[in-house]
């Protein structure tokens, strides 16, 4: 029996990408503009006042991976959550649920599209950042893979959020009240090593620290935590999300009455 229908997955993927481009101002231009403003204010303006830099890097270059991650986490989560929440909200989910489509096609479609959009955003942000700050990427291939991994993981997380949420408020509460503060406190603008104890220990309990440092390693070859640990935790998060979504589809939780 056919266990994965490529055409079904492609149909969902295409539809979700089109939805993103249909709202390009909100879903592409807005996050690019916000991140660019961060680069201008923190990287070019404030960074130029900091003669010593951070960890041997000029401040503008130091914050590039963290700011990139801030956008990727928020956008991946929001896109995937809205992607599945909207049909649930309008009732159009009936079409997906009554089609011969399983968890694999659904995830490739919804999560793949959300992750693709994050990759496109990442590319645009890196390009615009190059006009504001002087940065380099030590391991471009690993950087690409890491961004892909983080995008996919948080798109999966967003998908779960979209299935769990029963209101628009719940949909936005996690990215705004949890992800954004954790990213700001996760070493985006400063090195964790520069924190005194016990704040350093507290900071290490923030999972975003490992993500930011993982991406920073692919950019500059060094970070506050070992790259293996960052990679391992990200992979673990991805697997937990996949496992949870498989359970959702098996039991119909929040999808089928």
């Amino acid at each position: 029996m056919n266990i994965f229908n490529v055409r079904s997955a492609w149909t969902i993927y295409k539809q979700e990408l089109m939805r993103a481009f249909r709202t390009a101002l909100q879903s592409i231009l807005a996050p690019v503009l916000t991140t660019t403003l961060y680069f201008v204010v923190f990287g070019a303006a404030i960074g130029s006042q900091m003669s010593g830099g951070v960890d041997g890097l000029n401040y503008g270059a130091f914050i590039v991976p963290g700011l990139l991650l801030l956008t990727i986490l928020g956008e991946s989560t929001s896109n995937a959550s809205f992607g599945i929440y909207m049909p649930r909200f309008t009732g159009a989910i009936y079409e997906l649920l009554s089609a011969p489509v399983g968890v694999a096609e659904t995830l490739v479609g919804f999560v793949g599209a959300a992750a693709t959009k994050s990759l496109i955003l990442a590319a645009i942000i890196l390009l615009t950042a190059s006009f504001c700050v002087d940065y380099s990427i030590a391991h471009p291939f690993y950087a690409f893979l890491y961004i892909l991994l983080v995008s996919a993981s948080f798109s999966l997380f967003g998908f779960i959020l979209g299935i769990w949420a029963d209101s628009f408020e719940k949909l936005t509460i996690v990215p705004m009240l949890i992800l954004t503060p954790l990213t700001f406190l996760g070493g985006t603008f400063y090195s964790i090593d520069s924190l005194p104890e016990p704040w350093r220990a507290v900071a290490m309990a923030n999972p975003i620290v490992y993500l930011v440092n993982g991406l920073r390693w692919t950019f500059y070859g060094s970070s506050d935590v070992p790259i293996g640990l960052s990679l391992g935790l990200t992979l673990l998060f991805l697997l937990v999300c996949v496992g949870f979504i498989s359970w959702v589809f098996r039991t119909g939780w929040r999808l089928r009455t």
Partner: protein
Amino acid sequence: MQPILEIAGLTKTYKGGFTALRNVDLSIRKGEIFALLGPNGAGKTTLIGAVCGLVRPSSGTIHAFGEDMGRHWRRLRARVGLVPQELATDMFEPVLRSVNHSRGLFGLAPNPALIEEILRALSLWDKRDAQIRTLSGGMKRRVLIAKALAHEPELLFLDEPTAGVDVELRRDMWKQIARLRERGTTVILTTHYIEEAEEMADRVGIIRKGEILMVDDKATMMKRLGRVEALISLAQPLAGLPEFLSAYPVTLIEEGAVLCYRGGEGGVAGTAEVAELTKALTRAGIDYTGIDIHESSLEDIFVNLLEGPDGPSAEAAA
């Protein structure tokens, strides 16, 4: 012939304890139009949802095309289409793209000729590039039908297909549904418009409070349960029923001015008995000035069934 859909012992009890379907058994024949009639909240949509994968049954089995829907859902769902009751779709999508999307979702290669044929048949071709939100309510409903037909289902569920649709469009949709049957599609529709079932269905099922009360051919149902009511206006009022009328199911109403006949299960027997009755009146020298004869419609049968011993009327009286 093997039924195209066979439901056995289907029960659905929701988390809160509400039982929407109680031990439902139902068999649908290939190529027929089956109308599931029932008041709001009877369980029609839940029953459809259980077959189409929107509702998880608490117990029971569903077989389609001779195979278990639970085990072979992927293969079987590809052959089933659903038009939901609510106008639920991405309203910002243009019609053509939305219908193509539905076909792709079912894993099928694009078929522009077929999609054009479907859209033309539903008078939507001219609106193919219009966003769905800009269409009228009737057109939106037709878009949902087009979406459900895009993967050429052999078994099509229409959940209240003409709800909120004007009379002209309703008749237009009946024609569309009849055309589907001609092409070999089996259609199961839910409705609370009795006229709709009477006009289109080969067989009718009546559901109330999650239980199937009756399933029969429409004609058989009307023959079995249909009644005749005849009101014979008498030239002179009668003080009481003459002895010779005791053989007939008649009563005197309107102070003896009208003789009311109610009986004759099955329309033909009833009208013959009314003819007998009029002859008997003539023989007895009882003159009459008019006869108003009325055969039960499906609606009368439906209302009688619903207002049976456990029906709403009985409940209200209790």
